[in-house]
Every structure is written in C-alpha cells, then in structure tokens.
C-alpha cells in the first residue's frame, strides 16, 4: 500500500490496487464493520428497553412490530425526520464537527477487533492492539468536550467538562487493569516477548493438547475455560469493566448526562441525526468495551468446535467453524452488554465526590499494587524453579481474595463517605427540629411554620375554618 501511494506511475498502481483481491476484502470488511456498529446499536437500544422493562416488571415497547421488535427502526425513521436545530449562539464549526469526532474513533476501534479465525482485517495484526483501542477511546473525550463547549449552553458545558474529567480519570485504571494480562503473555511465551494484539492474546488462553479422542478434541480444542484469564485475574476484570462503564458514561457513572441536574448534559442542544450519532457512538463504545473484555478475559471467539472445524482444512467445515466463532463472540459480547443494562437498572448514580475519589484513591492504587504483586509472585515462583501453572494458580488465588477484599473496601468506603457527606444536612435538620419543637409545637398535624403563617393570614380573612 505504501508502494501504491508513492509509486511513479501512481494511476496504474492505484488501478491495480483497487481491483486487487486484498482491496476488495478491505472494502467488504469496512462496510461490514460499519454495518455491525449500526446494527449492534439498533439491537442494543431495543435490548436495553426490553431488559429494563423486564427487570422493572413492565412490558416495554410492544406496539411497533411483533413484540415491539421494530421499535428502534421506527426511532431511526423519526430521528431522520427531525429538524436539525443549530442554536444561534453556538460555535458552529465545533458544534457541527463534534458528532464526527465522537463517532470516528469508535468505527476506527473496530479495525483491530478480530471476529473469527479467518475474518479479520489486516488491522487485526496491529502490534499495538490494546494500546490502540484505548487511544481511540480517549479521542472520544475530545468529541465530548467539543459538544459541550460548542453548544454554548450552561448545561452542555458543565456536562462536557464533567464527562471529560470522568473519562480521563477512569482511563488510567482501565489500562492499568490490562497490564497484568500483558505480563502474562510475556511470562507464558518461551521467548519472553509478550504481545498487545488481541488475536495473539487468545492463543495464551488455550492450553489444549490434541488427545486423539474425537469428542474431546471437538469440544475442547481451542476452548479451555479453565485457562481463561478471568479465573486468574477476576479483580482486574471487575475493575476493567467498572472503568468501561465510566468510559462510556453509563449508569452508575452517568453524571455527565444526569437528567435531574443537567437535562441531558453535553447532548442538550443536539437533535435529530446529530444526536443519533452520539447515541451510536455510545453504543459502539459499549460493544468495544464488551469485546475487549471477551477477548482478554473470556477467551474471545473460542467455543466448542471452532478450532477443530477450522483445523480440518475443508473449506465448508472451515466456514461453519468461522460462523460458530462469530456466534460465540457475539454471545460473549452481548452477554457483557447485558451486564451493562443490568448494572444500569440496579445501581443508583454515584455522587460526584465519590466518582473522582473512587478512580484516584481506590482503583489506581489497587491496579498498581496488582501489577507489582503479579511481577513479584512470578519472580519468587520462578526463582524456586516452579512451573508457570503454579504461578497462575497462586496469582489467581490471591486475586480472588483481592476481589472479596475489594468488595468489602468499596462497601465501607461508600458508607463512610456517604455519612460524611450527609453529616452537615443531618446536623442542620436536627437543629431545625429542636428549634421548631421549642418554639412552635405542631398544631392540628400541620407543620408549625405553616400553621403560624395560616393563622397570621387568617386574621384578615372574614372566615377561618382552622381557628
């Protein structure tokens, strides 16, 4: 492709480049991944409404299509027909470009997601897979800030700044939580040089050796749940997922778009398709966070039959194996998305002081300590001459213990910060109560101040039912 760009006879090169098989493959992959983002968002919107309805014992959308299945299609049509309003005080260029800046990185992140053993862009071979994904998700912050600033609206500005502060704070533990997985890839190879590529990290979660027994090989080849990294690093999975919630501005971290205080945050002035682009980007981000979780901790596309069928060297069975792989991956991705929705309908919103302290004082120290622990345990185990699996077991046990400790820590910290935050209000309430009980006793079950005001007003009135 570089020779294509800098060739002497550029048009001839370009032509041969365009009609090449590789280029065609690329175009198909590009279009299908854009299609995947669009479809995925459509499905997730409906799924969110249905699942939340189910959890809250409601029906959710039922009128559009069978079982409400066409609801999002109708929503898209509605959004297309909505007037696109630019506020006259807005900073036009920034206001109009913000959705693009928000959506571009989301689409770009899909370039490195391998979908199955065969289907994958050349981008999936990027040596910097994880770092690239995190970098793309941090570009989103710029889109959010542009939306907040460009709208020239107080709600938008506050929402945008809050979102930016939150997203950059949670990005640090997000990547720190993945460092231990990168360390595993270094430890588990013979050469000692690890990898950042999602596709190669999958290989480390496969420990199956061919046994020659057909059934066992069919099920477990490439599918070894006991070697998936979530067993070794459950705490890091939880922390990564929590940071993913904060990165995508989802509940309980949805302070930037808290309806009760900020209307819709940085989205306040957006309408129609521009607003839909933000929505699309948000759901795309959800998919990416779920996909990274699936790849790093849950074995990616691996499932019964995938490696066996693709390893047969028969094209049709290979195709079936790939379809199975895509199916397993989507199952895991949407499973994680389901947890997103579940969390949303379970947890109340965090307070803003808890939000920042949680990232900087709990998550970052915990992840840093975990990195040191992982390294330290390996060096000790290795110096004693013990095998790698023993190291993984010890790390796993410590990490599971850490998970329970973490839950306890969060519980206690939440309780204590809540008590501290509520203390002034409770004190004021008590003061008011004592003052009220001393000066103005309740009269006929009407609060004292109201009763006094009423009786004061009643002196001028002709008739008073109260007195």
């Amino acid at each position, binding site marked *: 492709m570089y020779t294509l760009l800098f060739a002497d006879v550029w048009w001839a090169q370009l032509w041969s480049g365009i009609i090449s098989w590789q280029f065609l493959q690329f175009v198909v992959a*590009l279009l299908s991944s854009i299609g995947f983002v669009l479809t995925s968002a459509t499905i997730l919107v409906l799924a969110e409404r249905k699942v939340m309805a189910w959890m809250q014992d409601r029906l959710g959308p039922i009128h559009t299509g069978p079982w409400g299945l066409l609801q999002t299609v109708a929503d898209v049509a509605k959004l297309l027909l909505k007037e696109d309003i630019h506020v006259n005080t807005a900073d036009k260029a920034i206001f109009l470009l913000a959705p693009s800046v928000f959506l571009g990185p989301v*689409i770009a992140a899909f370039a490195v997601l391998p979908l199955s053993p065969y289907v994958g862009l050349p981008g999936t071979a990027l040596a910097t897979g994880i770092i690239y994904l995190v970098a793309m998700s941090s570009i989103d912050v710029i889109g959010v800030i542009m939306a907040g600033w460009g709208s020239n609206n107080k709600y938008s500005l506050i929402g945008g700044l809050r979102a930016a502060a939150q997203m950059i704070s949670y990005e640090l533990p997000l990547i720190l939580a993945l460092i231990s997985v990168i360390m595993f890839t270094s430890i588990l190879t013979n050469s000692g040089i690890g990898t950042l590529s999602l596709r190669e990290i999958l290989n480390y979660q496969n420990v199956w050796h061919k046994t020659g027994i057909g059934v066992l090989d069919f099920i477990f080849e490439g599918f070894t749940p006991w070697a998936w990294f979530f067993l070794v690093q459950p705490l890091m999975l939880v922390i990564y997922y929590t940071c993913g919630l904060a990165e995508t501005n989802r509940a309980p971290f949805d302070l930037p778009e808290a309806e009760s205080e900020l*209307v819709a945050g940085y989205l306040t002035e957006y309408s*129609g398709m521009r607003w839909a682009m933000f929505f699309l980007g948000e759901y795309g981000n959800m998919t990416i966070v779920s996909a990274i979780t699936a790849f790093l901790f849950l074995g990616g596309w691996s499932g019964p039959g995938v490696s066996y069928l693709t390893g047969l060297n028969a094209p049709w069975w290979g195709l079936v194996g790939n379809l199975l792989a895509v199916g397993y991956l989507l199952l895991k991705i949407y499973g994680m998305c389901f947890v997103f929705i579940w969390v949303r309908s379970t947890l109340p919103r965090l307070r803003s002081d808890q939000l920042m302290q949680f990232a900087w004082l709990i998550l970052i120290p915990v992840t840093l300590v975990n990195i040191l622990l992982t390294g330290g345990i390996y060096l000790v185990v290795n110096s004693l001459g013990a095998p790698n699996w023993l190291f993984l077991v010890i790390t796993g046990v410590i990490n599971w213990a850490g998970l329970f400790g973490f839950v306890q820590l969060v519980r206690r910290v939440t309780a204590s910060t809540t008590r501290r935050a509520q203390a002034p209000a409770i004190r004021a309430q008590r003061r008011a109560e004592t003052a009220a009980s001393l000066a103005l006793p309740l009269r006929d079950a009407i609060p004292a101040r109201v009763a006094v005001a009423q009786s004061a007003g009643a002196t001028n009135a002709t008739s008073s039912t109260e007195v």
Partner: protein
Amino acid sequence: MPANIGYLYAAIFLAAGFILAIVATLLGNILAPHKRTKEKLQTYESGETVIGTARVQYPLGFYIFALLFVAFDVDIVFIAAWAIIFKPLGLFGFIEITFFIIVLALGLVYAWRKGVTRWI
C-alpha cells in the same frame, strides 16, 4: 508489504467514521423540515429567557485533573512497554518498575493530601 500497513487501514476506518457521521446528518438535513423560529434557535435554559453566555469561569479542579492525567498517561505507556518484555528483564526490570511505581504513587499521595480529589 510493510508491517505497518495496519495503521493505514485504521486511518481509513477513522476517516470512514468521520464521513459516516457527516453523511448521516446530511441525509437527515435533506429529509427533515426547516422551520426556524426565533424561539427555537435560542439556547435551552429550561424554558427561561437566556441569561448571559455559557463561557464563564469554571472550577480549576478540571484543569488539575487534566494535568494529573497527562503525567499518569505517559507513565502508563512506559509500564506497558515494560510489561511486554517483563520476563527477559527479570529482577532488574522489576526493581526498576517498583521504584517507578513508588514515585508515581508519591505523586498521587501528594495530590491527595493537597485535596485535589476532594472535588467540589
């Protein structure tokens, strides 16, 4: 084929995302009505008359968080680079990174004692 070809593809994806958003909004603009009124073009302020501009002073806390973030983010790139070659570096690399992380943690403790994370 050069090894870095993936970045070119990624860049094309980025551009495609940009264009997708622009095309979708243009499509919306073609289909949607255009009935501008003075009230509609006003900034939304809960239905009240707009008071002043939104470009006012905002808390310095945001700025300090951004500074902290830049420092930590650069450090994390370094930690990631160390993590990839963790095994060959062995004990030497581990001691180095321990010092590095302690210095990082000291910075965090300093920011914490200064009350940066107290937010509001």
